[in-house]
């Protein structure tokens, strides 16, 4: 299915958020996730089913003021 990953359309086979992160190359990374603007805590990623057109935000620590 097609998902918007950090603002870019990506073709993803995985059906849930945890699997999608692994497929997209984020395994073991320190990050936080949101689907369609809703925060998905790390323990709930495996149960977070994805659907065509979902918007994923994958955020990591960054410099800030």
């Amino acid at each position, binding site marked *: 299915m097609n998902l918007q990953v*950090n*603002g870019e359309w990506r073709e993803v086979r995985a059906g849930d958020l945890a699997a999608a992160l692994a497929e*997209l*190359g*984020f395994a073991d*990374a*320190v*990050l*936080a*996730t*949101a689907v369609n*603007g*809703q*925060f998905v*805590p*790390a323990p709930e990623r495996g149960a977070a089913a994805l659907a065509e057109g979902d918007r994923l*935000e*994958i*955020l*990591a*620590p*960054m*410099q*800030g*003021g």
Partner: protein
Amino acid sequence: MFTLYDVPVRSRLLLGTARYPSPAILTEAVQASGTEVVTVSLRREAAGERAGQAFWSLVRELGVRVLPNTAGCHTVKEAVTTAHMAREVFGTRWVKLEVIGEEDTLQPDVFGLVEAARILCAEDFEVFPYTTEDLTVAERLLAAGCRVLMPWGSPIGSGHGLNNLFGLKALRARFAQVPLIIDAGIGVPSHAAQALELGFDAVLINTAVSQAADPARMAGAFAQAVIAGREGFLAGPIEPRDMAVPSSPVVGTALLR
């Protein structure tokens, strides 16, 4: 020594981590500043680059406490969601709450700020709200559960220092027991010293250090400025006067005409 949400903090200089020429210079600046608290943010991570992972390991090596911000958020929902994500990633209840209201000045949307603060405090966050010097807003933020306030000096990154001395002094006088940190607008060490002389507990600096020609040296200069400013405050400054007062004794002046 002062406390931020029951955490004792010695250094009265908090440092932002953005816009340094390189990670190595950021590290040098943090070390030169003597800071115990640095601000960080959350941004989109690219799988190939893993820039965030590298930054996070650098920050952890610094051995300082992190204060995640909600920079770039313009709505209550964005700010609250960002705070949730930051709490998970950084493992802290601290959050520097920013709800931006206006693009040119990056002035806080104080209405959204109070609402977001109420939500986050109720969820057990320890909120550091980026606010103005407005007394009523400060009152509402404290009523929402905030135990620290971060009034701006002047717009973020402007380097104008303390724009509204009257308002800031009133804020300090009105909330004598609340830790107040001047956040934003400080340009040079004398601005930081002035903030501390007025009795503010600390300053948060980013651009003035990271964009200086020599960031580490500037960080060291700010470290000295906050110490001088605090000592000056504790020593009890004189009141300014309009007319001169001779400092040498008048009695006993020789007649040499």
